[in-house]
């Protein structure tokens, strides 16, 4: 009798701990989506090995599509989480700066000719230039936020508005098309490897940020600045630097995303590339259970959140839900999240749980 009781208590507290874990929020959402797909149509989980038109082996299936298409969002979620944690605000210019990064990349690759026969510069050089430019734009946002104390959403509104025009101007309004195959390796497949390259790039980014968070004080400092700027200052941190740093890291993420986006189609369309991706990135951070008002953050949860969004998108495509209705479904997710995380609801829930415990005890 006694042992039974403790066992039960142990199990419930384990469950309780799991539920309270932040990572559970996106994981639960992901499981829910998988469960739905499993019941309605298990072929969702089918993965096939086939060959693409160039004769190289490629894996295909909905799961692969999610991993492939979700890469950009996962990468952006990394940077967005840091910005959110440090500044308590979000960067809404990432879509536009992705256009800039992609434009710079193509400009360097193509030189002055918009339809070059051969690449004018190695891809790595073009990518590094794009990184520098994107980080500069990130720093611009960061300075506005950290030094001039403008609200992040307002500060990044500048590039949100101007970014796509700047991107068009970088290439004199032309639409460069790259015919060289090596660029597509970054957006599709490397010959011989059946897994899409963007997934590898995303994993590389995750490993890098994982190592950085493990071996440097970035996590601690960012959280300290996000929780209380003044006390972090009193403790010898430099909040201005940390905030700018978070925007610069996001800029780096943006450059990587720009590379993938451009490599996918070997060209660019300034007005639609990475359109509305900023909202998805912010949603990924929120889905990860991170407070959008800054402070503590959980990187893993954000990244899973990004894949949840892609899973939702792919599921809706699969069931032929009109894609212009997609934002409505995302809105439902946001509403549920906001309500669940609202302090009023939490208090009520805790009170309810406490009551139940008392009842059980009695």
């Amino acid at each position, binding site marked *: 009798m006694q042992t039974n009781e403790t066992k039960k208590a142990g199990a419930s507290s384990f469950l309780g701990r799991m539920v309270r874990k932040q990572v559970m929020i996106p994981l639960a959402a992901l499981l829910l989506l998988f469960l739905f797909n499993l019941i309605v149509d298990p*072929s969702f989980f089918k993965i096939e090995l*086939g*060959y*693409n*038109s*160039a004769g190289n082996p*490629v894996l*295909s*299936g*909905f799961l692969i*599509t999610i991993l492939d*298409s979700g890469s950009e969002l996962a990468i952006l979620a990394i940077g967005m989480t840091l910005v959110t944690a440090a500044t308590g605000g979000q960067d809404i210019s990432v879509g536009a700066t992705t256009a800039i990064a992609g434009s710079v990349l193509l400009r360097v690759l193509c030189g002055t000719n918009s*339809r070059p026969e051969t690449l004018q510069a190695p891809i790595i050089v073009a990518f590094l230039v794009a990184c520098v430019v994107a980080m500069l734009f990130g720093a611009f946002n960061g300075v*506005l936020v950290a030094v*001039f*104390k*403008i609200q992040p959403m*307002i*500060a990044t509104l*500048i590039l949100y*508005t*101007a970014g*796509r*025009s*700047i991107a*068009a*101007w970088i290439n004199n*309004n032309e*639409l460069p*098309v790259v015919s060289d195959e090596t660029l597509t390796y970054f957006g*599709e*497949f490397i010959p011989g490897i059946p897994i899409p390259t963007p997934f590898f790039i995303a994993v590389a980014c995750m490993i890098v940020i994982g190592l950085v968070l493990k071996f440097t004080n970035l996590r601690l400092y960012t959280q300290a600045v996000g929780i209380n700027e003044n006390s972090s200052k009193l403790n010898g941190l430099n909040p201005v630097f940390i905030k700018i740093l978070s925007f610069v890291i996001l800029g780096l993420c943006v450059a990587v995303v720009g590379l993938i*986006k451009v490599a*996918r*189609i070997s*060209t660019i*369309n*300034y*007005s*639609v*590339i990475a*359109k509305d991706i900023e909202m998805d990135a912010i949603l990924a951070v929120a889905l990860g259970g991170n407070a959008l008002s800054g402070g503590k953050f959980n990187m893993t949860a954000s990244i899973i959140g990004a894949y949840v969004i892609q899973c939702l*998108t*792919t599921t809706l*495509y*699969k069931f*032929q839900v*009109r*894609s*212009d209705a997609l934002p409505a479904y995302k809105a439902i997710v946001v509403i549920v999240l906001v309500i669940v995380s609202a302090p009023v609801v939490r208090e009520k829930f805790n009170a309810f749980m406490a009551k139940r415990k008392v009842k059980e005890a009695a």
Partner: protein
Amino acid sequence: MKKKLVSVLVCAAMTAAVLAGCGNKAAETTDAPAAEETTEDAAAEETTDDAAAEETTDAAASGELIKVGIINNDPNESGYRTANDADMKAMFTEENGYEASFAYSLKNDEQITAAQKFIQDGVDYLLLSAADTAGWDTVLMDAQAAGTRVILFDRTIDADESLYEASIVSDMDAEGQTAVDWLAGQGLDEYNIIHIQGVMGSAAQQGRTGALNAMVEANDNWNLVTQQTAEWNAEKAQQIVQSVIDSGEEFNVIYAENDDMAKGAVAALDKANISHGVDGDVIIMGFDTNTWALEELLAGNWNYDGQCNPYQASYIDEVIKTIESGGTIEEKVIIMEEKGFDAETITQEDIDKYGI
């Protein structure tokens, strides 16, 4: 106080961004004599923030020149608009007897302000591609009172026909019909179509969708495997087609409402090793005749590309010449000729001539 400072800074930053954009373009321009006005030169004009662009070309012999004020949408908007703008600039030069001023905006109210400025400046003709259909009556009446003739191009407006001389537009319905007729002419036993739409509600989307929908409804062997909007976005189109491929449904036609989306769709097909184009399993259809898209046709990777003609300048020129020589315009609405290109008949000359 702090708030004020912040808002000042934001303004400053925005101005800086704008100036940076202008500065560089201006730097490209050369002090070429007006007669040799290049498109680049004109590009400098467009960046003058002053929408009403006072910069008319150095009119040495302004006496005989016809003064035209051209109000267009921002050339950054799309490849179509860029081509349209370049065409205008090539036509309305001093060599051709025009003194042209340009104003650009995607906003109706700014366009109206620019129009009023042009009327005050006493232009002979006001050429207008309106951002919005509504709100033009008053300003057009002003134009009529001032003796300025108005010619609409590319877009129509909700105003009485008497207020303008002519309206030169694309017929999107006809574009869709041409494409669907072409598809019907392919004589397939069964049409299983992936239909990728543009931004819902845009004129191009409605016209290009309408014809296909009518055909699918009328024929039993025409089916839509999926009908989704990719909002002109290549990548969304890729995801939509990918999703159809993943679910294993059969299809043999991709009807994409612009070239970008067709390109995205083809990327998904290539990934799955589904052959397309001439002699392929899937027929690829696009719109807008971008040069690169026509090259895909020539290479046999795509099957069809429908034109959305951005070259209205010669039509406008004709209208103006007619009016100047005392003639009358009989048909106010002039619909431009628009072609559809077939991969089997397209030539390099077509690409050079019609590619944008």
